[in-house]
């Protein structure tokens, strides 16, 4: 990283993430843990949907924080 600011999983999480999208830091309460390797997205790259209990959403597409946002047909959070 080009600066010394500590980045956390929460910092990398989109503001309007679908509440059905799950990842490990949400379960371990580790959203404020510091991320050290320059990754772009929160967690360790493993995401799944609470509605399907797999990494495929109800719309048959992959679960990912970049996608599980308002506008996706299965998005289940409050509209921004």
């Amino acid at each position, binding site marked *: 990283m080009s600066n010394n600011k500590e980045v956390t999983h929460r910092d990398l999480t989109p503001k309007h993430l679908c509440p059905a999208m799950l990842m490990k830091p949400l379960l371990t309460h580790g*959203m404020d843990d510091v991320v050290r390797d320059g990754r772009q997205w929160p967690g360790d*790259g493993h995401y799944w949907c*609470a509605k*399907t209990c797999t990494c495929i959403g109800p719309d048959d597409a992959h679960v990912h924080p970049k996608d599980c946002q308002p506008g996706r047909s299965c998005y289940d959070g409050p509209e921004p």
Partner: protein
Amino acid sequence: MNSRDRTPPEKELKVGFGSLIETRTFEVPAGDAPPWDATTKLSVVGSDADRADGRDKASGRAKYTHDIAFPGMLQAAILRAPIARGLLQNLDLEKARSMPGVAAVIALKEVGKRVRFVGDEIAAVAAPTLDLCRDALEAIVAEYAQEGHTVDFLFADGAPVLDEQGDITDPWPDAGEELTAAFAKAKTTVTGTYRTEVQTHASMESHGAVAKWTDADLDVYMSTQATFGVRGELSQAMRAAGLQCKSVTIHAEFVGGGFGSKFTAGAEGRAVALLAHAANAPVKLVLNRFEEHTCTGNRPAALMQFRAAVDEQGAIIAWDQRSWGGCGHNGQGGGIAIPDHLLAKAARRRERAHQDLATDADPARPMRAPAHPQGFFGAELCIDELAAAAGIDPLALRKQNDAQPLRLQQYELGAERFGWEQARAAAAEAKQDQHARYLRGVGCASARWGNLGNDGRGRGDGPGHGAVCRIHQDGSVEARSGAQDVGTGFKSVLTNLTAEELGIRAEQVRATAGHTTDPSGPAAGGSTTTASLAPVIRHAAFLCKQELAKKAAEHLGVAADSIVFAAGRLSAGDTSMSFGDACKLIGPNPIEMRGERFPNYKGKVFERGVCGAQFAEVEVDTWTGIVRVLRMLAIQDCGIVVAQKPAESQVLGAMIQGIGFALHEQRILDRQSGRMLNGDFLRYKVPGALDVPPMEVIMQSVANGHSNCSAAGLGEAPTCASAAAIANAVFHAIGHPVRRLPITPDKVLAALHQRGGK
């Protein structure tokens, strides 16, 4: 007023370990138990007290998910896709539904949706016996539109080109001025391509659950790492399926391992709940070993290239890397982590050079220290190659470059205990005999992880993590947490901390974990559980102690705050009474207190994580290429060691997993069919008793100063180093690196051939 709202007083604590102990100031929240530090004398914590549930497990009294049974309970099984990629064109469940005895048949994939790997879930059935379930699965008609697939990530889009030796031939991307300049002034530079294979979690207990509905209330007995996580997940899943679901209660009293694969309820967890609802009966669904290997995640493969340089003084001054992750169909989670603590003096590439590659295979899941064993293997072997090329002892190179004082002590202690210099010298001398069949080598590697736990509140004001302590009139004591013990020894954490605080023996405390009717805690992942919950367990016992002290004080005629709890007695000056007699004062209702998890203290902690170092000695049969690990040593800290035996067991388990990762384990998928060819424990080889050498673990109890008991996470750290240390020992033995795991005989013989050709 919540105790968290009070101004925290500053307190001086002795933090550190051994000669590194120093005094630092921390803000200790009002109301917390007085924090332990490096000078605190503890009697149960850190002792060799037996594992709390050891007798239950050894005697068979422990009930795992597979052991759960209810009257009228049905069995269940899943129909899985036989193709690696395509569309589900037709699904006819009617014949199965009409079979006598079949209680429920449900679709898990809708017609028209995509099939993404061999084993993808299609449908599920429930019936009184597994035989009938299998017959019903055969009666289901599923038709697919098959498409071409790729299960080898080296053939996936975006994979780099490799030469015949397996080395990446693509030119390095521009490294930038600083890194280029660092390489230019180096004394010695090495470049290597390193590779690891997919490792499955291989938990002894496979995924499974028993689901039981009572009206709209769902009870699930599940092998899970996340009791509260899957409670919320299944609640959403049931509502999404259109079912009325007022409550979900998870029970996971005993769990036979998870290693990261059991954070989600999974398709099987959702299926069993839906089947139980459809059948109006309890249903059990436990995956078989083939399903466990092929459908519940894995540690993804990795392809890494490193180039590293040292200067004349032995400082690692330049480090460059690029990597690719061999993932499943989701194409995520294949990153690597390397020992940054060895590279504090090195110029580095500023941008992350990593790409995950998707294949038509089971998607990866987190696995014990995700990204680390792969990256540590490659990077630590590269560092040993660098040391050899520069003519520096590899341990000396680490000692010169490691930035963490505690690990420097661990290197020293390990070298002495393992006989590093003598063993290295003996191995080198033996190699002088050019006809020697057996060669020996000695290697080492470092370990790290960073988790001091959390309060479970995030940025909210909720109650956070909890735990309950109860003291009963008959002298019995309970310590309860709704978080799960996945086999790591969390119940011993409950018993030892409670016993320590109350001045009694660990055997006097009954620990219960894994029921979401008890106070909440985090999922067992990222070395979080003990670090997060130990302080709250101790706080619960501390609050109970204060209540019991009040009752005893009245009886003894002393001030409550003058009473000391130790050795099974409550004492104040010359007067005392036994713990059991004090409990008789409680009355019919127990003293019950819920502990609070205060935020980690503000102040400069000794370490932000934990440190470790491991050593391995191997013997290589140069005729057959077989590598045998002769002995291993691990030195590891985990904050103040709460439960010695389970802690040692955690490290031993990591070392055994490391042997498997280094020498044996490899998921093999048939490129034609996409099916796993070794989906059992016969052909997917995890270490057996004869593969496990004498292993020593030295736990270092380190006061960090971040909480009332300074407990830090342990599960991940020792996993980082084991395979790397073994690979380095093999390199030392044969004088040529084996850069691809597992180090099977064919690779050893090829390396010997390459060495001989030089």
